[in-house]
């Protein structure tokens, strides 16, 4: 059932596999239905629009001063004893982290949830360097045991049901098979506690990095994030450069939006704010704290006023929870670190359009994502933009996304130029319409995937143009208006 072997570019194969797997479809449908109703309930007594406006404004304000805020964040963190590193690529970030680990003679790393580390495949990199990297978020732990990748950015193991997880834990850790979620959870807790006590380094992500105070904020429910940032002697936080926000007061609205949008919680169990390593008189906490700021394509997105909206994202996952396509095919089908709507608008920048050319078209542009996005990212508009980039379809606005024009085939161009010839000339259009009505009996009965499940509509006997021409001629003679 595992889909992780599907290569990056094969969205179709991934989608096909998922659609043919009733278990996956049931798991996602149920999970997404639950998440949607929880979100709706969580915002029930809020004025949601002003809150989303505020969320969007905060993120835009941060992006407007991104380089300055990154410098401010760095200066404040350094003053407080946190070491700050910059990486242009995921690989550079991996190297930085490996070097920190090796300098400490670290053999094992415990990880809190971090999508950026997934993005750069940090675990594999560290393992190749002889450093064991263990995920500690329960969902990530399950996915790691199954040798898969997360299928959702908030709930990594959402594609599995209790049965499957029980079986997996049994096979990999010897846990007795059980349907009792408390039992399974307790068993995982036991396994991981040992690791927390012995791990040399803790690696976490960051939800918000507050420039004004030099504070790394982590949002979580389990407590594994707090253990990761508190128990090992060294904590390395890794995050994309866009996660910075200007002020501490910006946290309240963003947090209110994040947890409610993600899982319908009014807040998560822990909101963990890390500003410094252990001080001389303190008795726990890491003696060394590092922040690795990763660019990995983000500064390229920043070059374009419209595309830049992508960087507002606070990774709540609401867009995928509400996406009718994601709900049908699940996260693995996308073959990318970030699935769903956010993945479709982000991954083309991180990987280039060659590798992701099927993503922008895999949407009906229904707008459910943008409707719920807590920071009001106009996702359909960005998809539209990427479609345009994929075919270099706008001579007034040059394409700039890596790999643009990859879908500009001669056949596509021919179709649209014929289409334009007809529709830009009213007479040609009317002529074609008349022709269609006359050929209505000769229409093909099959049309690719359409007719596999549907009938094909028949052209009308007379177009509305024709009907109205007749009618207008008639009404010219009969003047009296009808009541």
């Amino acid at each position, binding site marked *: 059932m595992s889909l992780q072997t599907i290569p990056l570019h094969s969205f179709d194969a991934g989608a096909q596999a998922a659609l043919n797997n009733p278990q996956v479809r049931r*798991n996602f449908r149920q999970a997404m239905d639950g*998440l949607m109703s929880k979100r709706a309930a969580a915002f029930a007594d*809020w004025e949601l629009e*002003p809150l989303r*406006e*505020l969320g969007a*404004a905060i993120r*835009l*304000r941060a992006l407007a001063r*991104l*380089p300055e805020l*990154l410098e401010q964040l760095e200066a404040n963190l350094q003053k407080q004893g946190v070491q700050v590193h910059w990486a*242009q690529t995921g690989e550079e970030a991996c190297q*930085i982290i490996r070097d920190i680990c090796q300098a400490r003679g670290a053999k094992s790393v415990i990880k809190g949830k971090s999508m950026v580390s997934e993005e750069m495949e940090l675990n594999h990199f560290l393992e190749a360097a002889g450093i064991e990297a263990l995920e500690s*978020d329960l*969902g990530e732990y*399950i996915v790691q045991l199954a040798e898969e990748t997360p299928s959702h950015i908030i*709930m990594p*193991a959402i594609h599995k049901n*209790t049965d499957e*997880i029980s079986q997996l834990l049994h096979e990999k850790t010897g846990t007795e098979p059980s349907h009792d979620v408390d039992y399974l*959870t307790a068993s995982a*807790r036991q396994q991981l*506690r040992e690791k*927390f006590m012995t791990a040399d380094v803790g690696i976490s992500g960051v939800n918000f990095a507050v420039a*004004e*105070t030099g*504070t790394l904020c982590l949002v979580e*429910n*389990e*407590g594994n994030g707090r*253990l990761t940032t*508190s*128990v090992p002697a060294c904590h390395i936080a890794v995050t994309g*450069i866009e996660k910075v926000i200007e002020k501490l*007061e910006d946290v*309240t*609205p963003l*947090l209110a939006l994040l947890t409610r949008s993600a*899982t319908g919680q*009014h*807040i*998560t*169990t*822990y*909101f963990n*704010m*890390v500003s410094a*390593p*252990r*001080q001389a008189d*303190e*008795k*726990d906490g890491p003696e060394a704290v590092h922040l690795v*700021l990763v660019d990995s394509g983000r*500064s*390229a997105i*920043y*070059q374009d*006023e419209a595309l830049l909206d992508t960087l507002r994202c606070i990774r709540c996952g609401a867009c995928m929870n509400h996406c009718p396509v994601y709900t049908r095919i699940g996260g693995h089908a996308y073959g990318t670190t970030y699935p769903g709507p956010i993945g479709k608008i982000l991954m083309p920048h991180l990987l280039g359009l060659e590798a992701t050319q099927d993503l922008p078209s895999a949407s009906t542009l229904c707008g459910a994502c943008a409707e719920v996005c807590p920071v009001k990212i106009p996702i359909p508009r960005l998809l539209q933009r990427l479609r345009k980039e994929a075919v270099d379809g706008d001579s007034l606005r040059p394409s700039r996304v890596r790999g643009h024009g990859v879908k500009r085939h001669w056949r596509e161009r021919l179709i649209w130029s014929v289409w334009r010839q007809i529709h830009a000339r009213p007479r040609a259009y009317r002529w074609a319409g008349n022709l269609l009505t006359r050929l209505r009996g000769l229409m093909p009965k099959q049309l690719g995937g359409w007719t596999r499940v549907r009938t094909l509509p028949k052209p009308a006997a007379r177009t509305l143009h024709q009907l109205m021409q007749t009618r207008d001629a008639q009404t010219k003679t009969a003047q009296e208006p009808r009541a």
Partner: protein
Amino acid sequence: MNQARAAILQRLRQGRPADFAVPESDFTVVRQRNWSLEERIERFQQKIESVQGQVHRVAEDHWIPVLIRLLAEHQINNLLLSENKAPAQALREQWHEDLPSLLSYQQPLEAWKETLFNQVDAALTSCRGGIAETGSLILWPDADEPRLMSLVPPVHFVLLQAKQIYATFDEVLREQAWVEQGLPTNALLISGPSKTADIEQTLAYGVHGPKALIVLLLE
């Protein structure tokens, strides 16, 4: 590394769209709560109980007997608590032999990690207040009440002064002047016991942190 820094910052500076329009940040929607003290208390209690937190409203001078009763109910054999804070001192003074033994976080974590992880049943900490809107407790761990007290033992007791329940986190930041005085090494909002829904969306408590969070609300 410095090269990466320079390159990233340069790309951002050069690429920044010229007329970057930023709308006003209107915070009205997260402010203007105007809840009375009683409303704040009720809301706090309702929110934290909705995520399995427990709240016991007790008179300020009566919390120790209540705690003793709760320790017995939870079959707790030892309790980790502060050495220096006033309530902890008061408790130590009133303690006697037959009650669970009292522990303190005297040495650095490394010196007693095994014990802390495997043998401590419960911890009692103070806090800097609560938040009504989200049912949260505000903790600033320090040398006397280190971070792991509120995380590693399976049961976490917290003393909360009712009059320190604020409406929102935003209000806390302003009234306690966090930015002005600077943040501690680690600051926390804790809203309920540790939990997960990673197995088929079924809630399970106590996954990595405490299974029970018990608030003694002092009035």
